[in-house]
């Protein structure tokens, strides 16, 4: 569910980042209250644990394996605010030091995986646990919480993807970033998460929670003692969706589904992307209006090609010698 760069416009990334700033600030405040100053470095351990959780392959029935995020698990074990900080740090290290991508999309990824997933999961868990009898309630809460938590996060990601082609187009009407509208992104993300990833999360969360509860129950986060009022749940859900709502202003929500589908069905026109001028074959200039060389001094083109050629040759030589070094010498 990690969103890479260049799928979301910089403005989307900035908005999601801005949405996370209050969350992070509050998380730091809350954690500081519960964790004395000299224990702050220990948050690193929660982050390391969160990072490693994402590395494990979870066996699911059928013989395949998949990765889980463990957001709800972390929220239950460490508390939701500590979970947010831990997952944020883990994502930061993944993006910055492991180079998987997602530097600009960091805000969006944190919003989905470090905020929506653990909080939705945790509140549903608590909500159910407080209303259904003890042990049964706990486990139903965990199942529901982890399943819904991860799927809510997937939905947020899908929405972030899907509104890109609606909001960010170039002059020719082509999408600048993710080209798949909501009608494609939502089913694509949700089907895989509802059917597979969600199940993986549930299995992962329940099994590990049960183990820790049996072996060392004292380590599980105690949490707030008061019951959660239903109205807060609704308010919370609304707050979660609001940044996405902000992005979607200017787009009539109802329109997206029908129009796109209509275009696909009616032969000849496809997905409404291509402007009139392209109907009769694809001319290079029309396809790549930004690439046209009109008025561009030839020299620049030549220099760049030369530089590229030289660099590629050097790289190939270096790779070959590095590979050779690795091979054992023949006696």
């Amino acid at each position, binding site marked *: 569910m990690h969103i890479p*760069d260049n799928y979301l416009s910089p403005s989307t990334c900035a908005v999601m980042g801005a949405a996370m700033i209050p969350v992070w600030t509050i998380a730091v405040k809350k954690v500081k209250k519960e964790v004395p100053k000299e224990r702050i470095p220990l948050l690193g*351990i929660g982050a390391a*644990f969160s990072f490693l959780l994402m590395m494990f392959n979870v066996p699911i029935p059928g013989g395949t394996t998949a990765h889980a995020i463990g957001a709800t698990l972390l929220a239950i074990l460490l508390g939701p605010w500590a979970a947010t900080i831990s997952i944020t740090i883990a994502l930061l290290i993944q*993006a910055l030091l492991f*180079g998987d991508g997602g530097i600009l999309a960091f805000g969006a990824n944190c919003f989905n995986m470090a905020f929506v997933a653990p909080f939705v999961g945790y509140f549903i868990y608590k909500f159910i646990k407080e209303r259904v009898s003890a042990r049964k309630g706990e486990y139903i809460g965990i199942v529901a919480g982890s399943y819904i938590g991860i799927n809510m996060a997937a939905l947020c990601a899908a929405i972030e993807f899907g509104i890109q082609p609606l909001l960010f187009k170039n002059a020719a009407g082509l999408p600048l970033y993710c*080209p798949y509208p909501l009608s494609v992104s939502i089913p694509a993300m949700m089907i895989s998460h509802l059917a597979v990833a969600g199940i993986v999360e549930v299995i992962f969360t329940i099994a590990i929670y049960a183990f820790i509860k049996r072996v060392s129950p004292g380590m599980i986060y105690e949490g707030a003692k008061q019951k959660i009022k239903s109205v807060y749940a609704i308010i919370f859900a609304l707050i979660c969706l609001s940044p996405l709502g902000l992005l979607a202003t200017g787009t009539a929500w109802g329109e997206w589904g029908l129009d796109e589908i209509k275009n696909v069905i009616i032969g000849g026109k496809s997905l409404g992307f291509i402007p009139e001028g392209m109907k009769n074959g694809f001319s290079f200039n029309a396809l790549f209006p930004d690439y046209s060389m009109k008025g561009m001094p030839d020299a620049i083109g030549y220099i760049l090609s030369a530089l590229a050629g030289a660099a590629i040759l050097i790289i190939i030589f270096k790779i070959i010698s590095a590979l050779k070094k690795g091979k054992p010498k023949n006696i």
Partner: protein
Amino acid sequence: MTEKDIPEWLLKNENYFPQSDKDTFINKSITSLLGVLSHIRRQSGHKTDLFGINATFSVIFTILFIILLSVSRSLFFVITANIYLLLILCLLKGEDIMVILKTSFGVAAFTFIILLPTALYGNFYSITMITPKIFASVTAINILSRTNRWDSIISALKTFFIPDIFILVLDVTIMYIVLLGEFSLDMLYALKLRSVGKNKSKQASLSGIVGTMFIKSKEMAEDTYAAMRCRGFTGEYHTYRKFKFSFVDSLYIIANAIIILCFIYFGRYFRK
């Protein structure tokens, strides 16, 4: 104790024929963890940052570079950016180049496949713009992370107003990824060695490992806390990186200034 004290079944040979069972999750988890641990181990060998360029500049300009890439609507700029990265790459060691390109090509290929449906529907813009953009972004960030000491990169984050104490948290996180990772790896190996037949409760095995990892992490936390207190730590922390500005830094800044100019130039030329 004598030979007579040893139970009979231990003195005989075992005649066992295993059934088939898929234990791929153990192997895949092991591979995944090994990958992480060796990645961290590789970077700790550096004595200095790339060519002595101050990590602060590297971090700032790499992020700026990625932003420009993302904003750019000029394929020409994207290609120029890629050429710039190729030039940097050819200055690096062979093994580094291989690993960086492996990741970049991998992610770019994956992107290409994902965007293929839109191309088939006639939208060539996305696939031609986004794929090289992604290639460049991933290459840039991997160059940063492979050629700089990680604690330099982390210290460089101070320019983004991250408080010192969180720099310590990040350092501690990496250490614990190694320690907990090695700990879990040992357990995974032990599980693998004991996976001699059909494991009906795979979930239980995996959750046992992860659960134990959690408990161990809490114990380690207590130990680190005691160790820090014993050396006088009471919550305040200051980082002590010396900020050196050298000739290479000015070269690096000039190179990046050229990139920014290219961005503006190509953007202006082709803005519609």
